[in-house]
């Protein structure tokens, strides 16, 4: 792969250290491949528009590439989560500040493999509705909710990621679920009322 070639050039003196470094790069690549979807989806559910999600994910992994030697083995997901959280907040702030309309339909209009246009439309609507509900939640509740309900993380894992006591996570999750269910119920009622007209 071209990356290996490039780094081999960089590390021309084939010392033990350089070989260890190349192994480190391979590990970094594995981490990126393993967690790319997680990071991208997390950014989306934390409010980054689809059109900006690729760039935001790129930012996350750029930070990781700078610091991967300092990230403890096995703690990569936690590290990536922390960076993704900051990138998501920063991206949201920027998009609010510039009031820039992101070309969401252009990206979403790209066909997804193996699904009919109707299914794509339904999925798109459901995602928009989900994001609408998540947007109405306070950010700290939203974060816990997304990690638990969408990313299947355990409460203990979430507590580690957020550096919070388990009790706080449990409390936030309970409040987040209640709020989500309440909001979903209201949205459902509004949609039914609109359809009935």
């Amino acid at each position, binding site marked *: 792969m071209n990356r290996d070639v490039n780094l081999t050039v960089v590390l021309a003196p084939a010392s033990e250290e350089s070989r260890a470094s190349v192994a480190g790069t391979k590990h970094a690549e594995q981490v990126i491949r393993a967690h790319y979807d997680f990071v991208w989806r997390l950014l989306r559910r934390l409010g980054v528009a689809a059109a900006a999600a*690729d760039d935001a994910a790129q930012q996350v992994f750029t930070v990781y590439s700078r610091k991967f030697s300092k990230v403890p083995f096995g703690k990569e997901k936690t590290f990536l989560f922390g960076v993704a959280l900051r990138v998501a907040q920063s991206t949201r702030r920027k998009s609010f500040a510039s009031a820039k309309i992101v070309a969401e339909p252009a990206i979403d209009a790209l066909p997804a493999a193996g699904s009919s246009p109707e299914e794509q439309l339904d999925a798109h609507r459901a995602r928009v509705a989900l994001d609408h509900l998540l947007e109405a939640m306070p950010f700290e509740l939203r974060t816990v909710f997304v990690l638990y309900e969408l990313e299947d993380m355990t409460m203990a894992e979430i507590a580690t990621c957020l550096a919070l006591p388990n009790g706080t996570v449990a409390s936030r999750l309970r409040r987040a679920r209640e709020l989500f*269910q309440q909001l979903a119920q209201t949205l459902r009622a509004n949609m039914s009322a609109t359809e009935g007209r």
Partner: protein
Amino acid sequence: MKNHSSSQEPERLVCDGSSFERALLAAGRAEAPREDGLHQVLATLALGSAGSLVAGEFVRRSLFLKWSRPILLGLLAASPIVYVAASVSLAATRPVRERWHRTTSTTEDSVVLTEKQEVAPRARVEELQSKPKLLQAPMASRPTESPSLSRENSIRGRTTSSFEQEIALIEAAKSELAQKNFFAALAKVSAYQQDFPRGSFLEEADALQMDALTMAGNIEAARTYARRFIALHPKSPYRDRIERWLVTRP
């Protein structure tokens, strides 16, 4: 789907919620990034800014380079003098016309580099993505400059104007592309985009990037860049060409 529910952990809503809640959460879980996003990240790690950061990390960590850094810096500091000496030596042994041809020809430029490698390991350092800024101007502008100007820039380091540096990088990318050095061309384009985020030739750089990616066989990434290009530069003269290309490769 994993379910970690235990006595403390509630059942997830995607299993336990109402049908409406389940539908929303299932849609959120099913959303996945396009595969070329991952490829772009990996490509950038190799060739772009992130790659240079990785390279920089390795450079910092490499014991060899840590020890050799003072020596390397000494050689770099001496390299303009060596270069001047080498040029003067060449001037004394070759006809003026031949000299001019050698320094303006891109193929011959590699010969000059080889000669320099013998006296100082500059060429190797310049292959680093994170090469010092000081080196970028003289190296990048060498193919388009006369020997005397090149010498002056080597000595003064940063005298080349930003505009000239831009042209030099773009020309270098074109030259690499013409020689089918796609990854080197991408590296030049990436360096340009990084150094000149508001440069005068951004459109050209983007177009070159697409060409290089296409020629390198990374059609998916090229297509993504093509779509982004059209969105970013709707009035670009390259737009028609890119749209035609997209039509042929939907």
